C-alpha cells in the first residue's frame, strides 16, 4: 500500500467517525425537539386548559346560592321562607381507595340515611372530580357531618324553601327547581325579584382531594332576593281550600274552583282549584251566571229596566230552533228581575234580542272575555267568544250566549266581569302581588290602575239590587248568608260534547257581599257533580258559608238587619 492509498483510507475513516458522532447527536436532538415541542404544547398552547385542570384538582369552586326572598300573605304571615341547607359532594379521588371509601360512606350513610353501598357505587362510577351525592341536607345534619369530617366529603352551602303552612296555597306559590329557579306559580312569575344574586366561593383540597380545613373562601357575597307580600289572606285561603274539598266530596265532583276577590281593586284573597290553577287555565261554558252580564248590557243601553216585562211561555224559537227553560217551566208575565231570580232562559233570549248582536258583542269585548285578565300567574288562558264574523256562526249562538252557552271563558274572567257589574262599572285587574321589599329596605307597591269603565254606576246599582232579590227571597235560599246581606246568581250548564251537550254538568254560583258596600266577590264552581244538583243547590250553601266566614276576617260587621236572625 502506497502512501497515497494510506492517506485516502485515513480520510475515509475520519469521515465515517464524524458521521458516527452526528448520528447520536441527531437522535438525541430529535428526542429533545419532541420533548420541547410537547413542553410548548403543554405550557404555551394548552396552558389555559391544563391550568384549569390543575385548579380543578386542587381548588374547587362553586356558586354560592343567594337566599331567595320570603313570601308573606297580606297580613305579613310567612307563606314561604328560605332556610340554609347543604349539598354533599364527594371527591372521587379521595374515594379511590376502597377501604377509605367504605368507612367514609358508612359515616355519611349513618347521618343522612343514604345507602352506603349505593353511595360508593355512585362515586366510583362518576367521571367528575366532585360527585354530588345529596342535595338540601338539613342544616343540623350538615353540621354533624362537618364535625365527623368523613374523608373526601365536601359540604357546600345551599338554600331550600320552607312552607310553614304545609300545602296551603301551593298552587299559587309554585315551586323551585334544584338550581333554585322558580318553576311554577308566584315563584316563577316573580323569580327575578325573589332570586337575588348568587355569589361565588372556592375551596382548597390536598393532594388526595380532601378539603383543607378553613380552605373555603367566599369570592363574591351573594345578595339575598327581595321579599314579597301577596294579596292572599292565609285564613281565607285555608277556608276556601277546605270548602272546595268539602263541596267536591259532598257533590262527588271531579274538579272545581273557588275564587274570592276584592271587587274594587282586584286583589285575590283566595284562589283554590282542582286541578291546580284551573281557575285561570280551564275554559268552560259558564251557563246562567252570564245572564247577569246580559242584563247589565240591556240596562246600560237603557233598552230594559229591572221592571221591564215579557210573557214567558216556557219556550221560544230562534230561527226555528226551540229554546226552553230549565225543566220546561213557564212563568207567564215576567219582569227582568224575575228572569234572574228564576234563571229563565227565554227571558235572557228576550233581552239579547232587544240588545242585538252587534251591541252584545261590543259589550262582551269591553268585558274582555276574549282576552286574558293578565293576572300574575303563569299559563292563563284566553276566552273564546264566537261572533257573527266567524265561519261557523249561527244566529242561535247569540241566543245561547245570552245564557252562557256557545262561549268559553275562565272562572277568573267571569269573576272579573261580575265584579265590574257590582262595583260601579269598572273592570279591575286581578292580581296576587301586593308589594315587594328589597333587602335594602326599598318597598314597591303593586301599581294600581284605574280599570276600564264598562257600564254606568247606575246600571251597577240596579244589578246589585236585582241580584240581591235573587238571594233574598221570601223562602229560604241556599246561597243566602246568615249574617250578611248579599246578591248572587247561579249557573248550571251541560258540558259540550261532539255535536251537542253531554249529560255531565258544571255548576256554579257567583255572589257578592255585603249589598251596600261589597267587600268580596266569590265564585264557586263544581265540575261534573255526580249528584246532579243545580248550582243553587250545590254551590249555594258553599257561598253562604264562605261569606259568613270570610267577612269577619276582613273586619266587616254583620249586616244590622241580619243580626239575631236565624
Amino acid at each position, binding site marked *: 500500500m502506497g502512501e497515497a492509498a494510506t492517506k485516502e483510507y485515513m480520510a475515509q475513516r475520519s469521515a465515517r467517525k464524524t458521521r458516527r458522532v452526528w448520528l447520536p447527536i441527531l437522535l438525541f436532538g430529535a428526542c429533545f425537539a419532541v420533548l420541547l415541542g410537547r413542553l410548548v404544547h403543554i405550557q404555551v398552547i394548552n396552558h389555559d386548559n391544563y391550568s384549569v385542570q390543575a385548579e380543578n384538582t386542587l381548588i374547587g369552586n362553586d356558586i354560592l346560592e343567594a337566599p331567595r326572598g320570603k313570601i308573606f300573605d297580606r297580613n305579613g304571615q310567612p307563606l314561604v321562607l328560605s*332556610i*340554609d341547607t347543604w349539598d354533599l359532594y364527594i371527591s372521587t379521588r379521595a374515594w379511590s381507595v376502597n377501604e377509605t371509601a367504605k368507612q367514609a360512606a358508612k359515616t355519611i350513610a349513618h347521618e343522612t340515611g343514604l345507602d352506603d353501598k349505593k353511595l360508593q357505587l355512585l362515586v366510583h362510577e362518576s367521571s367528575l372530580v366532585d360527585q354530588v351525592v345529596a342535595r338540601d341536607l338539613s342544616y343540623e345534619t350538615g353540621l354533624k357531618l362537618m364535625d365527623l369530617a368523613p374523608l373526601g366529603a365536601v359540604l357546600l352551602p345551599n338554600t331550600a324553601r320552607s312552607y*310553614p*303552612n*304545609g300545602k*296551603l296555597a301551593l298552587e299559587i306559590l309554585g315551586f323551585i327547581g334544584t338550581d333554585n329557579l322558580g318553576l311554577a306559580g308566584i315563584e316563577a312569575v316573580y323569580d327575578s325579584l325573589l332570586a337575588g344574586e348568587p355569589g361565588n366561593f372556592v375551596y382548597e383540597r390536598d393532594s388526595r382531594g380532601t378539603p383543607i380545613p378553613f380552605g373555603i373562601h367566599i369570592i363574591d357575597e351573594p345578595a339575598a332576593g327581595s321579599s314579597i307580600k301577596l294579596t292572599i289572606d292565609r285564613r281565607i285561603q285555608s277556608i276556601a281550600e277546605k270548602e272546595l274539598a268539602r263541596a267536591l266530596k259532598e257533590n262527588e265532583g271531579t274538579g272545581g274552583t273557588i275564587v274570592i276577590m276584592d271587587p274594587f281593586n282586584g286583589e285575590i284573597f283566595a284562589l283554590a282549584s282542582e286541578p291546580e290553577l284551573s281557575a285561570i287555565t280551564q275554559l268552560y261554558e259558564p251557563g246562567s251566571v252570564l245572564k247577569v252580564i246580559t242584563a247589565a248590557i240591556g240596562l246600560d243601553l237603557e233598552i230594559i229596566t229591572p221592571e221591564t216585562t215579557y210573557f214567558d211561555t216556557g219556550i221560544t224559537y230562534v230561527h226555528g230552533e226551540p229554546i226552553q227553560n230549565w225543566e220546561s217551566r213557564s212563568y207567564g208575565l215576567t219582569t227582568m228581575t224575575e228572569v234572574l231570580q228564576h234563571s229563565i232562559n227565554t227571558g235572557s233570549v228576550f233581552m239579547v234580542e232587544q240588545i242585538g248582536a252587534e251591541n252584545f258583542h261590543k259589550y262582551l269585548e269591553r268585558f274582555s272575555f276574549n282576552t286574558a285578565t293578565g293576572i300574575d300567574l303563569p299559563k292563563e288562558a284566553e276566552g273564546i267568544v264566537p261572533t257573527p264574523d266567524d265561519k261557523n256562526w249561527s244566529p242561535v249562538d247569540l241566543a245561547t250566549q245570552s245564557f252562557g252557552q256557545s262561549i268559553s271563558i275562565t272562572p277568573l274572567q267571569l269573576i272579573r266581569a261580575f265584579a265590574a257589574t257590582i262595583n260601579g262599572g269598572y273592570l279591575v285587574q286581578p292580581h296576587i302581588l301586593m308589594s315587594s321589599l328589597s333587602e335594602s329596605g326599598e318597598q314597591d307597591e303593586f301599581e294600581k290602575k284605574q280599570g276600564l269603565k264598562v257600564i254606568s254606576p247606575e246600571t251597577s246599582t240596579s244589578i246589585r239590587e236585582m241580584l240581591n232579590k235573587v238571594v233574598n227571597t221570601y223562602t229560604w235560599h241556599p246561597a243566602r248568608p246568615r*249574617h250578611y246581606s248579599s246578591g248572587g246568581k247561579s249557573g248550571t250548564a251541560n258540558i259540550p260534547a261532539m255535536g251537542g251537550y253531554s249529560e255531565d254538568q258544571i255548576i256554579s254560583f257567583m255572589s257578592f257581599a255585603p249589598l251596600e258596600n261589597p267587600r268580596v266577590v266569590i265564585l264557586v264552581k263544581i265540575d261534573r257533580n255526580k249528584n246532579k244538583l243545580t248550582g243553587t243547590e250545590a254551590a249555594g250553601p258553599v257561598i253562604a258559608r264562605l261569606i259568613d266566614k270570610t267577612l*269577619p276576617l276582613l273586619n266587616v260587621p254583620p249586616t244590622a238587619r241580619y243580626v239575631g236572625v236565624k
Partner: protein
Amino acid sequence: MATRQQALARFPQSTLTLRWGLIVSISLLALSALIPVLQASLITTQGHDLQLLKQNRTRLTSEIRLLESELAGLNSLERIERRAREIGLIDPDTPPIFIQISNNLTSVTKTTEGLPGKEISDSNPTLWWRSIFKEDQH
C-alpha cells in the same frame, strides 16, 4: 510621647465602643428581619380570626333562618286549629261581636261606669320604706 501614651490609654475604650456598636447593629438587623415575620404572623392570625368570625356569622344567620321557619311552623293555621281542638274550642255558631265606637264620647270615665270602682288611695303614694318605720313604732 505623651500623645502616644494618651492614645494607648484610649485604645481599650474604643474597642469596647466598637463591640457595643456591633451588638446593637446585629440586634437591629435581627429585629428588622423579625418585623416582616411578626407582621406576617399577625396578619395570618387576624385572617384566621376573621374567617372564624365570618363562619360564626354565617352559622348564626342560618340558625336565625331556621328559628324563623320553626316559629312560622308553630304559628301555622294547622297547628293553631289543632291546639284549639285540644283545649276544647269549637267553631262559633254566632258571628263575632263587632263593637262600633261612636265619635261623640263625652269622657273616658263614662265608658268605665259599669266596671268595679278603683280603690281610693292617698293622694301621696306611700313609699315602701315608710312601712318599716310604721312597724318600728309598734
